[in-house]
Each structure stands twice: as structure tokens, then as C-alpha cells.
């Protein structure tokens, strides 16, 4: 007996194959859903993603100075540093004409850039340009450009100035990233450590990590028992106590930072209480703010809710019977806690820990205000270069590194917790 399977397609009432019709409907639904998201997506891409991308491009960009001294840099690359102490005549010649004919504003910008590579460039070039313009005005053509330069200023015979060109001769360069790690390029373009007195970033990076690790540990120590208490109290009480956690969360960061200054300063509340209690004498007041201690205390309090909330949501669902069962089976309370309860809170600990750590390394306001000189974190350098020195390449590179570190940790967070599991309040 033969079984025939109909291969004819199912049709809708309009005579269109059902599969096609369904696919069309599916596509229409997809487009509709996407259209709802589209305005915000476009907005975020234009106002946020593009600026960040622009910053990352800026961190490897050295095209401005290359557009000012194209010939000089080309000739410079031909210089055989092993053979000659000073660059060849052509380098001096190209520089002569590029300084004489260049646009004043563009040269000014380039000078600022050159000063980041080696201080002293700005005044040297300014003086030299003045002299060169005089020579050009007189209509003389120098016999030896090299000699002319050295006659104008003896620093032109100093190869260390020329070596610093290595940091600038490429349109796209990684020099800012190396600078952000206290490294620079030497005469052969190799990566070496900066001068002793210019090394400050590695120190700050290390301090940023140290402070973040400490803050995370403190938050865990302080947050764990509190989350446990909140998770195990009857709802009536825990909702009430939750206000203590949520209110700081909702209060302006500046208000909390100001409050800590008031609390911790030399004649502040805590010192006042300690003096009143007789723990310390009136002139033995402790310096607790405008240093690393201040940063640690204030940041711990500010970030504590971010530890308590994830811990709480994990502890909430751990059945209370587990601890009782363990103890029934003969475990001491401590053993039951370590072997039964603690392992179940690991998701909460990792979520809270990562969140606090990631927030801490990017912190700026609080360390800047209560950190004084030795409590500042890397964010302060970014702000300093953005606003004060205008060394935007370095600023962008510091930001780029920080962003990279953040992304690694968020990738971890996403693996462990899932980024769309973030809950508020």
C-alpha cells in the first residue's frame, strides 16, 4: 500500500502560501518593535556612543602636528642616528621653510603638542621662528641651514631635542597610551620609562586599584551582615530598615560628600565627639579628610548600597530551612554557615563586589573633594588634562584605558549576573 504525502503548500484565504504570509507578518512585527526602539537608539548613538568613539580616535591621533611639519618629519625618518650625531641638512632645511611659511595658529597648536613631548620646545621654536623670519625678510639664503639654526640657538645642536621627534612623527601613534603608563619613546623609538619626575600615572593607577579593592572589601564586610539581617527579618521591619539603605542611594552625591567633610574635618563631628569623650586631646585631633582615609571612608559609605542590594536579593530566596537542616544533621552553626549558607550567597557577593569595584575605579567627585593630595584617583588626572593642561590626547588615552578595564569587568559581570538583570530600588 502506498502512502501519499501531500507536498502542496498550505495557502491562506488570499491564495498566498501560509509560510510566506507568516514570514511577512513576522518581519512586520520585527520592524514595528525596532521602530519603537529606534528613536532612543539613534539618540544614544549620536549623543553618547559617537562622543566616546571620537575620544578613542583622539587618543591615537597625532595628525595636527604632522600636517604642520610634513616635510621635516619625512626627512627626519631618513636620519641614521647611528652614523650622525645630528640630523642631516635636509631636516634643518625643511624645518626652516615650514617655520617661515607655516600658518601661525597651526604652528602654535603644534608647539603645545611638542611641549608635551619635551618641555622647552615652545620657547625654542618661538625664538627661532622670529630669527628665521628676519633672515627671510632680508632675502638671504643661508649656506648651511644647520649652522644657521645652531647659531640662533645652541639647543639645535642638542640631539635630545631631536630625539623627542620620535614621539610625534606618526599620524596615528600609541604614544599617549604609553605616556598614560609613564612610558615614552627613546631615540630609537623604543618604549622606555619616563624621567623619574614625570612618572605619576602608574602610581595613581595603582592607588586607584588599591582604593577600589579596599572599598570593595569594606563594603562586603559591612554589607554582608546587614543584607543578611534585611533578608531574614519579617517584611514589615525589613521594609522599614530598607529606607536606611535606599535614602543615601537617592541623595545627591555632593550632599553625601559634603556631609563627610563636615563629619571628618579637624573640628568636625567625629573629632568633636572623640575629644568630648576624652579619647584624644584637643590638639591631637586626627586628620581624617583630605587624604586617602577620607576617600576610603566616604566612598565606602557611598557605594555600600550597591553591595547590600544585590546581596539582599540573593539572600532573600535562600530557604531558611537549609541552615536548620544542616544543624539538625549535626553541623555546628559556624560550619553550617560556611558550608551551606555562604556558598549560596556567592552570586550576590560577586555581583555586589564587581559592581562596587567597577563604580569605584571610575569615581571622580568624591576622591577629588575629600582626597586631598594623596587620595586622588585616576579620574582626577582625566579632569586635570581636560580642563587645565588641555593635553587632550593624554586625557583621551587615560580615559581609553579606564574604559577598557571597565569593559572587561562588565563583561565578567554580564557573564555572572547578566546586565539586563540590573534592578533599581
Amino acid at each position, binding site marked *: 500500500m502506498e502512502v501519499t504525502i501531500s507536498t502542496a503548500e498550505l495557502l491562506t484565504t488570499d491564495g498566498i502560501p501560509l509560510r510566506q504570509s507568516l514570514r511577512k507578518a513576522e518581519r512586520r512585527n520585527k520592524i514595528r518593535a525596532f521602530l519603537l526602539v529606534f528613536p*532612543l537608539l539613534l539618540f544614544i548613538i549620536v549623543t553618547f556612543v559617537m562622543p*566616546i568613539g571620537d575620544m578613542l580616535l583622539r587618543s591615537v591621533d597625532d595628525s595636527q602636528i604632522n600636517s604642520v611639519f610634513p616635510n621635516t618629519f619625512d626627512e627626519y625618518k631618513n636620519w641614521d642616528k647611528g652614523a650622525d650625531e645630528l640630523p642631516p641638512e635636509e631636516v634643518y632645511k625643511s624645518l626652516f621653510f615650514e617655520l617661515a611659511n607655516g600658518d601661525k595658529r597651526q604652528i602654535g597648536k603644534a608647539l603645545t603638542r611638542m611641549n608635551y613631548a619635551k618641555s622647552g620646545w615652545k620657547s625654542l621654536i618661538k625664538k627661532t621662528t622670529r630669527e628665521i623670519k628676519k633672515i627671510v625678510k632680508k632675502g638671504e639664503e643661508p649656506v648651511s641651514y644647520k649652522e644657521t639654526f645652531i647659531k640662533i640657538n645652541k639647543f639645535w645642536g642638542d640631539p635630545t631635542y631631536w630625539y623627542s621627534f620620535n614621539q610625534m612623527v606618526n599620524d596615528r601613534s600609541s604614544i599617549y597610551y604609553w605616556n598614560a603608563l609613564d612610558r615614552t619613546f627613546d631615540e630609537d623609538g623604543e618604549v622606555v620609562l619616563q624621567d623619574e619626575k614625570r612618572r605619576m600615572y602608574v602610581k595613581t593607577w595603582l592607588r586607584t586599584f588599591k582604593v577600589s579593592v579596599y572599598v570593595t572589601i569594606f563594603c562586603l564586610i559591612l554589607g554582608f551582615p546587614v543584607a543578611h539581617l534585611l533578608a531574614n527579618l519579617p517584611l514589615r521591619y525589613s521594609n522599614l530598615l530598607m529606607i536606611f539603605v535606599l*535614602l543615601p542611594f537617592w541623595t545627591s552625591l555632593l550632599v553625601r560628600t*559634603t556631609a563627610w567633610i563636615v*563629619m571628618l574635618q579637624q573640628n*568636625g563631628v567625629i573629632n568633636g565627639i572623640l575629644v568630648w569623650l576624652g579619647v584624644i586631646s584637643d590638639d591631637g585631633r586626627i586628620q581624617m579628610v583630605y587624604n586617602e582615609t577620607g576617600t576610603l571612608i566616604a566612598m565606602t559609605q557611598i557605594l555600600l548600597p550597591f553591595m547590600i542590594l544585590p546581596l539582599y536579593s540573593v539572600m532573600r530566596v535562600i530557604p531558611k530551612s537549609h541552615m536548620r537542616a544542616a544543624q539538625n544533621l549535626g553541623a555546628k552553626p559556624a560550619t553550617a554557615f560556611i558550608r551551606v549558607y555562604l556558598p549560596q550567597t556567592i552570586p550576590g557577593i560577586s555581583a555586589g563586589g564587581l559592581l562596587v569595584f567597577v563604580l569605584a575605579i571610575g569615581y571622580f567627585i568624591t576622591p577629588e573633594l575629600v582626597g586631598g593630595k594623596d587620595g586622588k584617583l585616576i*579620574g582626577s588626572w582625566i579632569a586635570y588634562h*581636560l580642563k587645565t593642561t588641555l593635553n587632550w590626547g593624554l586625557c583621551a588615552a587615560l580615559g581609553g584605558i579606564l574604559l577598557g578595564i571597565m569593559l572587561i569587568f562588565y563583561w565578567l559581570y554580564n557573564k555572572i549576573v547578566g546586565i539586563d538583570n540590573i534592578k533599581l530600588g
Partner: protein
Amino acid sequence: MALPSYATPVQRTYYYFYLFFCAVVFFFLIAPLFAIIPISFSVSPFMVFTEGMLAWPPDPEAWSIRWYKNMIGDCSADVVSSTVPCSTKWMVGTVNSFYIGIIATVIATALGTLAALGLSRPHMPYKGLIMAILISPMIVPLIITAAGMFFFYARINLVYTFTGVIFAHVALATPFVVITVTATLVGFDMNMVKAAQSLGAKPMRTFFKVIMPLILPGIISGALFAFITSFDEVVIVMFMASIDQLTIPKQMWAGIRQEISPVILCMATCLVLLSIFLLTTVELLRRRSEKLRGIKAR
């Protein structure tokens, strides 16, 4: 959570130590916020508890509202102190903060709600990637955002304008709206939409008459989150705003940096009260939303 009656003395000690420790942490969390309130009513221009304030019986001479008068721009003789400048800056800042905050909230809430509706649809393509992009402003440290935006907005002449600051604040605030509204839409019964449509309602009518009333608590909490984000934001404002866009946080920053004046504490007190108000509202809305969606309180 109470101690069982058979607990040993050691367990009892541990238990009381644990409670004590928790109490200390709660105190640590909340005390700084409330310590500033009495100091803001001090007569002294220094941010400390003066002896008069701590004296018993209370010394009315030690307390005053002069700094509050200073804050609202009343520079009469009894208010002005040689060390504390008096100006209308705080009030200008308040107006600007509300102006920027409200506009940013309206835009962020509209865009964020639409996006959340789209993201909650089962047909949404590339959901994970899009969600990651939309949430990113909340994740990237503010100082990096500020640096990036400063470079970029300077190119298109948006630095030092209200538009620039508002755009930046909208970008920072939308993740909060997206998250809260998406959370409200979890467990939203899509059959209600189908029912409305089968009864002949057009999409707009379905949204405003069926979906909107149900997710309104979520939208309002999202809007409040958005507002407080913009209202408290200081890093972006520091770099992207000129003196014309002076806001409360910018003025507070200047106040802490240069002139440590007690007026800051008056403003801080007002902000603590505002946050208590917002926290209560959000909490009430959350309960209402759970009731509306038929979720039992945990």
C-alpha cells in the same frame, strides 16, 4: 530571625554582636545625612556644632535661619557675614536645575518608554546588543562620558549651551527609564492588548487606554529616576556648562571647593528632604504597580 530558646551563651553573644554591628552600619549609612541638618541652622559661619548648640538648656542665640535667608538671596544686614558671600546664585542655580531637569526628564521618559515597549516585544531583533548600547551611559564612568562629550560637542558648538547639557542629561537618564519600564512590562498580559484590538481599538487608543494606565507607575518611577539623575549630575555640568548654565550641583561644587560656606548645608538639607520625598513616592508607586499587575507583596 529571633534567637531560639535553646541558644547557648556563646551563640547569644554572637547574635547580639551581630545586631550591634548591623546597627552601627545603619548608623554609618544614615548619620552623615542627618548630621548636616542641625548644623545648617547654626548661627556660626563654620560648618561645626558650636558650644551654644550643644548647651543644655538650648541657647536660642546659637540657632538661626540666616544661612537659609542667604540661600534664597536675601542679603540684609543680619544675614551677611564677612566670610560668606551673598548672592542670588543659589536661586539662579535652582531655577536652572529644574529647567534642565524637567526638559531632560520629559524627553528621556518619552524616548525610554517607547524603547522599553519595543524591547519587551517578543519579536525584537538583536535585543541583547541594543540593550547593552542603551544601558551603556549608566555604566561608563561619568568622567569618561564628560571627556568624550566635551570633545565631540565642542566640534558641533554645543558646549556651554543649555541644549548640550540637556542632551547629555537625557543620554544619562534614559537607561533608568528603560530599566524601570521594562521591569514593569515583565509579566504584562499581552492578551489585554489583543482584546483591545479585537474590540476595534486602534494602536494609539490601545496604548493610551490599556497599556499606559497599567505601566504608569513604572513610567513615573522611571521619570523620577531620570529627574534625580539630571538634578544631581555634576561632572557633565562642570565641563559642559558655562556660568549661564549654573545649576545647584555646580554651585555646590564651587562652594565646597572655594568658600566652605554653611549655605551649602542649607541646600544639602533641602536636597535630603527632596530625596526623602522622591524615595517615598517611588516606593508607593512600586507597591501600586505590583498590586495592579496582581503580584503579591513578597
